[in-house]
């Protein structure tokens, strides 16, 4: 068994009273890598990480954390893991320094300094902002100098500024060579932080890869838009036959071309060749959201229906994922 691999999971299965929560999941996390586990509620993400942490016993499958069995060698595994749990707070009146002392002390002062909480040592948990709370949870997760950190819905409910502060803190873990397993349905988090993303749906892994690979595989379509001069005799037919172009639409003087990413270059070249360089040329390439939406539509009819019924594209995916 490879003892340098932080997480090694093969064929993980877990049922709750006849309902399959996790159905044959494989998962790998290397040291110094941030791996995102993404999927809708009920996709099996939290059950998977609970099994990884030894908090739940899987029905079947192989789990190794740095070569150790999280159940048979719970104590040794526990010492290697720091975790931030979803929906888990601290008592309101517990002060920051008291929380650090309660959860093991360690290099608490240094960590509070690193995560910008040194000035809040005497503050009660209730008085902390959302971002400060999440940074405190990170500090608590790091107290035992873990080699694997598991973060479940770390930025839920944070404003954009606080979210970026937490991102910077998580990125620092990667620089320190710590393996991070990030459970989220916030795609911004995944896109900003993850080296690899594992997409789960209905207890199974439906795909995995870097954010760029997932976009490449599942978000192939690009949209190109520009305005043509009125009365110029512009013909959509000139673009329709270009490689990669799926369809061309002319509405008034506005042209919209849809196709794969290769179509961008061909349309640009055709415009220049035709002597027309539009000043309002816009290109929309697919985002991770688009890619995952498309992936979920392919794998989950319910999610696809929800997405189609919703108007806003960014809300679509969030809706589909939740």
């Amino acid at each position, binding site marked *: 068994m490879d003892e340098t691999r932080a997480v090694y999971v093969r064929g993980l299965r877990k049922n709750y009273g006849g309902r399959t929560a996790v159905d044959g999941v494989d998962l790998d996390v290397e040291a110094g890598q941030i791996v995102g586990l993404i999927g809708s509620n009920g996709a099996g993400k939290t059950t998977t990480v*609970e099994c990884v*942490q*030894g*908090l*739940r*016993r899987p029905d079947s499958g192989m789990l190794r954390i740095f070569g150790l069995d999280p*159940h048979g060698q*719970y*104590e040794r595994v*526990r010492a290697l893991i720091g*975790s931030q*749990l979803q*929906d*888990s*707070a*601290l*008592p309101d*009146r*517990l002060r920051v320094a*008291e929380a650090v*002392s*309660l*959860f*093991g002390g360690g290099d608490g002062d240094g960590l509070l300094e690193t995560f910008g909480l040194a000035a809040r040592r005497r503050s009660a948990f209730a008085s902390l902002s959302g971002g400060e709370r999440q940074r405190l949870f990170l500090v*608590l997760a790091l107290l035992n100098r873990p080699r694997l950190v598991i973060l479940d819905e770390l930025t839920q409910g944070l404003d954009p500024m606080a979210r970026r502060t937490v991102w910077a803190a998580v990125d620092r873990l990667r620089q320190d060579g710590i393996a991070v397993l990030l459970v989220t349905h916030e795609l911004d988090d995944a896109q900003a932080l993850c080296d690899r993303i594992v997409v789960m749906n209905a207890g199974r892994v439906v795909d995995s890869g870097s954010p760029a690979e997932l976009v490449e595989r599942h978000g192939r379509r690009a949209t190109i838009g520009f305005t043509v001069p009125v009365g110029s005799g512009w013909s959509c037919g000139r673009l329709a036959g270009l490689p990669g172009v799926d369809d061309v639409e002319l509405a008034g003087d506005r042209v919209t071309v849809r196709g794969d990413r290769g179509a961008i270059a061909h349309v640009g070249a055709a415009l220049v060749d035709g002597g027309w360089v539009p000043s309002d040329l816009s290109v929309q390439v697919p985002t991770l959201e688009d890619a995952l939406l498309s992936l979920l539509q392919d794998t989950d009819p319910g999610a696809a229906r929800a997405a189609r019924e919703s108007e806003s594209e960014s809300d679509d995916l969030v809706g589909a994922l939740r």
Partner: protein
Amino acid sequence: MTSATSTAAKSAARTTHGAAGATARLVRTELTLIRRDPLTLTFVFVFPVVTMLIIGGSFGTTPTPGFDNVDPSHWYVASYLTVIIAATGLITVPVHLASYRERGVLRRFAAAGFPRWSFALAELVVGLFPIAVGSAILLAVAAPVYGVPHLHQPGRVLAAFALGSVAFIAIGVLLGSLLPSARAAQATGLILFFPSFLIGSGGPPPNVMGSAIRAVSGYLPLTRVTDAVRDPWLGIGSATTSLIVVALLAAFAAVAAIRRTAL
């Protein structure tokens, strides 16, 4: 408690390294937090003292049959220690525990590898500490005003006081582990506390109650604890039956409570 928590606990139970240290840290933190809890301050430290001062002075100091032929003010001083026990067990502990469950604090303790029984032990200490402090305050205030009555059977009084405390703390833990939220625990706790207080300890003596109320009072756990503390204290009797009932209640409630709070 979720199955995740209990499974986590089974795993955490295997953790032995630093278990004593982790338990000590948890107990210390819990004691710090309970001192900051306004409900503890109000219902355990202030309410029993204020009501004892008022009602203890309402019936004079002449022994009457209604008060089992003892000084009524002494009758109330001896009774009011169990008001503190009831306030702790029915209000403070359930609200404290339910708020932890509501906020996922117990899950965090389990995931952080705290020993399996550490939280149950912490809750016992969290209950005993305010009872001890509240009782000391009550007796210190009563001493110059009504005097602290002579202890006729100190062993029995201490046993009843200790067993009654464990019983009510355990009942509090059970309430806190069953009720869905801190608000529900507070509402339920107050609904249970005030009738118990009025007909089981700090209200009129059973001898002057109507038969129906007296019958109800006889079934209240707090009445049993109060009898088991007050009767041997003031020399009214030994209250052996009540002491046995309180001991059984403490044993059953404690076992159930410990099982419910395994991390």
